[in-house]
């Protein structure tokens, strides 16, 4: 099932939740909608599900207009952030719900329903909880049941709204991997919403980075990390060192001092230099464009993370860099830094 979203606009009063959003999702893809709160990702998800309606725009599934139908007719499986399990029903009844409310004509007989529920509970490895109530389950278990419930109706699309947001870190990690392996088993077109970039990069086939109602970039996790298209994406994904620079002609200057880096076609004017922590080359004093004093060093594994106070700039700029441990840095040491890989974006981006 492919999904196409065109020119979606959604406003809540004055606030623009979605501003002309276009998106295409391929069949069987596992897509992440990633962004900070207020970016519109959940609104977009709910519009696709039919739980919300756009002010204008189109949504189509396999070429057919989806907006003519309500959520109950779109055959979409939705997993809520807080599970939304039916509190007065057992786990079994929760999962069976979608099958039980089907119109008489289509509904399966009780035996088939039972079999299917068992199948799903086996799939999420929780069939031993079949007679419990949601209040008796842990968060992680509830979420898996919510997923089983959504899968029961054999949805063409699976939508997950911050599915692991309410769980603690360890359970989140486990469920992430579990979701990925589940998806590779069942191949349903899936979209999940998250504000956790690690989660998006780890799990998804493609990532859609959103901010303030707009899509900033769509790409594979690798693309989004290595080739961020905008300052927002660079800043949101992974850690970045950001320095205000001025671009004129062929030179890039920081506080008037030229940095020995190519402009790479960046437009003239006030700009921002984005460098990943591990893309700053460290060398002895005098060998690079920037200089600074090491303030503090933390070592873990093969990396040492150093806080460096850049010289000039009133001693107010402290940046964090990651360096290999072939030569241990010492606090107080003066080092040179040279950006190896970097991006320059216009300052108002």
């Amino acid at each position, binding site marked *: 099932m492919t999904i196409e979203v065109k020119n979606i606009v959604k406003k809540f009063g004055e606030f623009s939740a979605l501003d002309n959003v276009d998106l295409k999702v391929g069949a069987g893809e596992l897509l992440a909608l990633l962004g900070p709160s207020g970016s519109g990702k959940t609104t977009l998800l709910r519009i696709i599900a*039919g739980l919300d309606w756009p002010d204008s725009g189109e949504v189509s599934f396999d070429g057919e207009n989806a907006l003519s139908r309500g959520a109950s007719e779109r055959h979409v499986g*939705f997993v809520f952030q807080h599970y939304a399990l*039916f*509190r*007065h*029903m057992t786990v079994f009844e929760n999962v069976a719900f979608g099958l039980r409310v089907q119109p008489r004509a289509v509904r399966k007989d009780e035996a088939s329903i039972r079999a299917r529920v068992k199948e799903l509970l086996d799939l999420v490895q929780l069939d031993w909880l079949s007679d419990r109530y949601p209040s008796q389950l842990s968060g992680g278990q509830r979420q898996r049941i919510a997923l089983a419930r959504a899968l029961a109706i054999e949805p063409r699309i699976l939508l997950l709204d911050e599915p692991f947001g309410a769980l603690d870190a360890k359970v989140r990690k486990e469920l992430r991997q579990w979701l990925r392996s589940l998806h590779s088993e069942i191949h349903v077109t899936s979209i999940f919403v998250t504000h956790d970039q690690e989660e998006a990069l780890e799990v998804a086939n493609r990532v859609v980075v959103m901010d303030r109602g707009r899509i900033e970039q769509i790409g594979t996790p690798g693309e989004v990390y290595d080739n961020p298209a905008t300052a927002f994406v660079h800043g949101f994904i992974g850690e970045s060192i950001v320095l205000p620079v001025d671009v004129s002609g062929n030179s890039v200057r920081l506080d008037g001092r030229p940095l020995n880096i190519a402009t790479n076609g960046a437009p003239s004017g006030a700009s921002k230099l984005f460098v990943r922590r591990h893309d700053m080359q460290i060398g002895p004093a005098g060998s690079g464009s920037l200089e600074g004093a090491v303030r503090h060093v933390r070592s873990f594994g093969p990396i040492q993370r150093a806080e460096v106070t850049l010289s000039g700039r009133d001693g107010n700029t402290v940046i964090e860099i990651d360096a290999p441990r072939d030569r241990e840095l010492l606090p107080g040491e003066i080092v040179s830094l040279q950006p190896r890989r970097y991006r320059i974006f216009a300052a108002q981006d």
Partner: protein
Amino acid sequence: MSTETTLLPPTTQLRTYAPSADLTVASLPSRREGVRPQAPPSPQNLRTEPGPVRFIIIALAVSFLTVFVVLPLVVVFASAFSKGVMAYLSALAEPEALSAIRLTLLVAAISVSLNLVFGVIAAWAITKFEFSGKTTLITLIDLPFSVSPVISGLVFVLLFGAQGFFGTWLQAHNVHILFAVPGIALATIFVTFPFVARALIPLMQEQGTQEEEAAISLGASGLQTFFRVTLPNIKWGLLYGVLLCNARAMGEFGAVSVVSGHIRGETNTMPLLVEILYNEYQFVASFAIASLLAMLALITLVVKTILERRLDEGQISSDD
């Protein structure tokens, strides 16, 4: 807790399942024990009064309540049985008494069932959707609480009485609303209008719309969603509202008195019969009927307390 009153009270307070702490003339305040009980102040700690003061306060409270609440209640039963059990039972077996009981039950059944259905519908409309004017709507629903029972009856006389707006039309078509069961039912429906909605609205607001949305996304229709998902979740609140509604419906006096015409054997509810018998000095009979109403009140209170505990528990266990 919001102790704000408004001209007519808002029901959108999440805390209580019973209308309380807002300006409702006839709402039944709830006795919330407090979810987190504190240690009672003991003589050893800094938080209490000296012994004699405590004694006086307790004595005052107890004697006041005894005089003003316990004694009246006891008087009802004492007077009812003052001439023995046989007199009591025969008073209840009188045809007038039986017809009053029948009428009371009928009117209660009508008003409770109608207000139940419409209370649920109103609560659904208010809590599951967003729209402007919600507060106004809730205020309007609460209106009967703020109005004196006599005025509640008056408004129907103004509509359906001989000189009322529809008076001539009704007479021409020989339709009797006042001084007949329909009038009594209408007046009772008016005064009991808010109970079910007010019990449900805070409860349903607290429960939110997520489960309903989940049901819809799984393919359920509106009715299926309501009956399979919403209704089981609100059943205790519903019972609570029905309980209060029924208690008020059976006990209503002022409004019904105005519209009923007091026609013996026909348009007397139990409270009205109590009045008539009392005014005729038939004390045993009067208090016999009164004792039935008093027992209803006591049972209502007991069940209400149980339900309140259920509702509190439900709230605690559903806090994920």
